[in-house]
């Protein structure tokens, strides 16, 4: 049983893996900043620690990535919270992590999973109770394999493993939920298929609270738990929110067939489309003069290049699935609290703070 129930601070530390990322960093800020628990940060690489070392966290080296290293560094922790992602997150790492947790006497392992793990499901209501099929797309498949390996290793080791399956996480410090769409809308025109499905997304603080709830929920909790924002929006609405931040149009809706053809284009061509180079100094000067003389937003958007999703992104955006929150509410006692307007208000404020132009 996890201690600290009933809102009392935990005495034993929680260990955080992946704390240098956007969601993991916010988790540390909230948990350490509010004194909910001592925090032990297990580092794979000693990069990008500026945000978390503001707090008196216990930094540990887990770069070896084997069960012995994890067991040694997790000793005494009540729960391990994983925001692990990337090419190193494979089945072997999953098994080492679970084995290390079990050996160290950790009560529960909580991992932030990805809705892309259900990528092969394109319609209908998602169900945590059934094993999701392997999704298409290299990144989604890798994440799916890691999550599957965590759950199976947990079954074998008798360790409760909770995979909190989140859609796109947006908000301060997030890449795909803030910096990337902001840059894409600012520098190009983001192409959206007319037939896109709903855009499921959750604000970063809500995702953190779901992870905390999964770490501290009473009783035996194991398996997947889906989370989502209070309501789903459309993909044009998501990217459109960045148009108002940038101050000009940056989204174009194309027929499905046209965008599908572009998405299938040669990767080099797509990369060129997707990452238009920043304008030269001369063009910046001309642009600045133009912006002073032309009413804001009236510069023809066709002059900027298309940002074309790859085939996997296109397929994911076409999915029309419903994300039920019943299990999150029943088992974790969690419901989302930040709606899209409020979330984007904070995201905009963050972007203006982090990258003032």
């Amino acid at each position, binding site marked *: 049983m996890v201690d600290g129930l009933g809102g009392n601070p935990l005495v034993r530390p929680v260990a955080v893996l992946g704390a240098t990322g956007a969601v993991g960093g916010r988790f540390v*800020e*909230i948990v*350490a*900043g509010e004194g909910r628990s001592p925090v032990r940060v297990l580092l794979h690489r*000693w*990069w*990008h*620690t*500026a*945000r978390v*070392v*503001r*707090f*008196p*966290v216990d*930094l540990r*080296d887990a770069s070896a990535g084997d069960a012995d290293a994890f067991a040694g560094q997790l000793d005494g922790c009540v729960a391990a919270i994983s925001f692990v992602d990337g090419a190193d997150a494979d089945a072997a790492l999953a098994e080492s992590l679970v084995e290390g947790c079990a050996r160290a006497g950790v009560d529960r392992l909580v991992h932030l999973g990805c809705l892309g793990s259900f990528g092969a499901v394109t319609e209908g209501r998602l169900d945590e109770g059934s094993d999701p099929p392997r999704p298409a797309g290299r990144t989604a498949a890798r994440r799916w394999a890691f999550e599957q390996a965590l759950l199976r290793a947990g079954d074998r080791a008798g360790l409760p493993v909770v995979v909190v399956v989140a859609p796109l996480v947006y908000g*301060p*410090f997030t890449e795909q939920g803030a910096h990337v769409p902001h840059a894409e809308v600012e520098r190009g025109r983001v192409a959206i298929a007319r037939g896109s499905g709903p855009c499921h997304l959750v604000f970063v*603080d809500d995702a953190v609270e779901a992870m905390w709830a999964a770490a501290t929920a009473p009783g035996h909790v194991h398996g997947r738990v889906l989370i989502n924002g209070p309501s789903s929006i459309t993909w044009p609405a998501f990217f459109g929110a960045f148009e108002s931040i940038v101050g000009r149009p940056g989204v174009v809706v194309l027929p499905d067939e046209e965008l599908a053809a572009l998405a299938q284009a040669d990767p080099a061509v797509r990369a060129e489309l997707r990452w238009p180079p920043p304008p030269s*100094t001369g063009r910046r000067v001309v642009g600045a003069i133009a912006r002073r003389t032309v009413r804001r937003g009236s510069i023809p958007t066709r002059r900027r290049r298309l940002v074309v999703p790859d085939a996997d992104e296109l397929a994911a955006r076409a999915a029309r699935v419903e994300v039920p929150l019943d299990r999150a509410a029943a088992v974790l006692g969690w419901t989302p609290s930040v709606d899209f307007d409020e979330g984007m208000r*904070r995201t905009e*404020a*963050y972007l*203006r*703070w*982090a*990258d*003032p132009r």
Partner: protein
Amino acid sequence: MHVGALERAGVTPAALIDPDPRRSALLGRPWPGVTIAPSPDLVVDDFDAAIVALPDQLHAPVVIELLQAGKDVLVEKPMAGTRAEAAAMVAAAAEAGRLLAVAQVRRHLAVKAWAFALLRSGALGAVLGVDAAQGGRDDWIATGRGYVAQAAGGVIVCSGVHTLDLLTWWFGPLDVVSCRDDARGWQEANATIELLAGAIPIHFELSRNRSRRNTIRVDTERGLLEVALDHYQPRQLLAVPDGVDVEPFVEVVDDLPGQFDRQLRAFTDALDGRWPPSLATGADGVSIARVVEDCLTCRTSDEPWWMASAATPS
């Protein structure tokens, strides 16, 4: 970077000293057969001057030992963790009659020496105020076990000392008026420091996770002088008052190796008895250590707005 500068200068080091011989061997590839030693005392008769690029906390004991052994020293920044340590290093240099210089590599950006000469010439009139802004999202200097391991290795110590040194070089010793930062029990990622150099007010913002303009703006009687703080900027000189009779600055590609090359030349010039103005002295190092210590002593909390979940950003 120091080893690279030696190699480009055609200088063969007398010895490479590191407790880990594999690391020394790796660095010593350009010089087959170069002496490799785990500590300086084993090769103390083999060299006259040393470049010390150890972790910060080892600077004081190792540099003092070298000075007492009669060696001239170029030590990486920050020179010392405390002003007491820095003062002890300077005292050891004076007692031994040896040189102690600090590797403040950003001084050796070409535009810095040009601007220093311009300010000293009096062509801009009196300096009315200074505004420096430094930092970037995921600033690289925020990384690395060595930095994190330091008790007070926040942005002020790690990257702020570059600009504090520049301000000291250009305007004289600094006094800390206030320091606001976002440390919550450990290391700050963002700080705003108000300083005085004599009567000149200086505003200095620095960040590890926020894009800043990375320039120093000097407001003078004749107008604004704006200079890049590091070599990542596409242009080094951003603004100079109109009508000032001054030798024009020629923009060049000024990469980091080039700055290390100039720093090495400055140190060898100093060894030859010609101490160039761009080379930081031990006294400069004491001054910076005092400013850092004062910042960390008088710091007040400046929590980022996004820490409070429902806060309204300012």
